[in-house]
């Protein structure tokens, strides 16, 4: 049997669950116009924005775990990565559902035409599809079963994150400051990994 999970890890997980569910809870309160809250004049657009950006935020958070773990040596951080990843998937699904259901009323011909014809939607939909195998293989059992291949498969997250940022960038009308910020953060997170890989290779070569 594995060693019992430390208490602080459980406490942090509970807190992270609450934090990850907060954007959804807030949106529900706004939709119900609780205490004068509201989703504004274009509620569908607002839901698309909130769900899409939350998915992107969580995706970037999953990519923060490994660099922080390496630089701090707190290996336990790895137990929070799956939580962020699965919530990223949750919000990506909500984002797509809002689009297909609330915006297009499940007019599937329209949905598929968009996916085929509109590059930013093609890219976003691809990112969502690629998230499915990652979510499906996120359990401990699948991780053990896949062994080394699990790590290879889950490198797809880099592609997904890039597609996510491109999807955001391409639908902006003019003001690209926000997608630019995401692109910058993603570049840093991917750059850190490249740097790490190079250092490892150099070390191996000098030995």
């Amino acid at each position, binding site marked *: 049997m594995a060693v019992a999970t430390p208490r602080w890890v459980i406490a942090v997980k509970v807190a992270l669950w609450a934090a990850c569910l907060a954007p959804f809870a807030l949106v529900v309160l706004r*939709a119900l116009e609780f205490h004068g809250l509201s989703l504004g*004049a274009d*509620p569908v*657009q607002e839901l698309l924005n909130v769900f899409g950006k939350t998915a992107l935020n969580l995706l970037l958070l999953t990519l923060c775990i490994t660099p922080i773990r390496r630089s701090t040596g707190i290996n336990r951080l790895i137990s929070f990565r799956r939580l962020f990843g699965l919530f990223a998937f949750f919000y990506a699904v909500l984002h797509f559902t809002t689009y297909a259901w609330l915006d297009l009323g499940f007019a599937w011909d329209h949905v598929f035409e968009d996916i085929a014809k509109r590059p930013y939607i093609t890219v976003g939909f691809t990112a969502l599809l690629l998230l499915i195998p990652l979510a499906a293989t996120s359990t401990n059992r699948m991780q053990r079963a896949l062994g080394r291949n699990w790590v290879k498969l889950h490198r797809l997250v880099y592609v997904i994150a890039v597609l996510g940022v491109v999807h955001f960038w391409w639908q902006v*009308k003019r003001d690209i400051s926000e997608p630019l910020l995401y692109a910058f953060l993603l570049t840093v997170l991917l750059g850190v990994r490249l740097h790490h890989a190079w250092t490892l290779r150099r070390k191996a070569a000098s030995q």
Partner: protein
Amino acid sequence: MRTKPDTRIKPSDITPEATFFNRRALLKTAVAAGLVPSMMATSDAATIPADGDFNPKPKKWAGSVTDTPNTLKDISTYNNYYEFGTGKGDPAVNAHTLKTSPWSVQVSGEAGKTGTFTLEDILKPHDLEERIYRLRCVEAWSMVIPWVGFPLADLIKRFEPTSQAKYVSFLTLADRNQMPGVRTSVLEWPYREGLTIEEAMHPLTLVTVGVYGKVLPNQNGAPIRIVVPWKYGFKSAKSIVRIHFTDKRPQTSWNMAAPQEYGFYSNVNPKVDHPRWSQASERKLGGGLFAARAPTLMFNGYADQVASLYTGLDLAKNY
């Protein structure tokens, strides 16, 4: 002032600006002295009232659409007015710094009567109407809005455009002290828009000073804007400080920013998609979360009135 446009006018016939204003001043003096009945000087129909309510109340225009208008809250909190920020809620938060009084509009170019006119000068002879128009944003959402204004044609006639006036351009105020967005370079300032003279003279094109019977909120383009209901919203210039008559097609801000996406005409057209998204349907705002999309209508539903302006024009090329 109430002369008919004479397209045969020669540049030498133009009343010098000084004479033009002198005439008004002379009339005012004459009225004050009791020599001329005041009715002859001005009809005092339209002014911007200090309390926000127009007096007399704007007459209801017979051509209004019968759709239920959006709430004033929706109309005044969901705006594209980049001079006050690029977020839809930014203008409502930031536009309080816009100083709408005193306000004047510079009229220039190919017209008999040019110069700088105070807002009062511009509005005085006109009767205000309430016109309920559809508004279709290029972003594929739409609203229904009860504007208050009068036909731009009536104003343009007063400036006596010459035969060289093929286009009219409109400039929006660009004051970085009053408009925080102007400090960014998201668009080239000042915001500029333009119409052909035929479009500008079309009876649907509205000089707009109010909404819901009251003075325009700043974020909706106070104190004076135009509304062109058959074109995407960005064609309707806000907070206008200059009207220019010209024989050349004027530059327009969104066309300058992304020429492959926003053309000069920008007529609402369900058959010509934005390069990145479909224009075939729209979200009609105000229906809540579960309202179905509606098909977008040619010329935003004003095809009967305006289609003849574009006979023989390839609308896919001239988007």
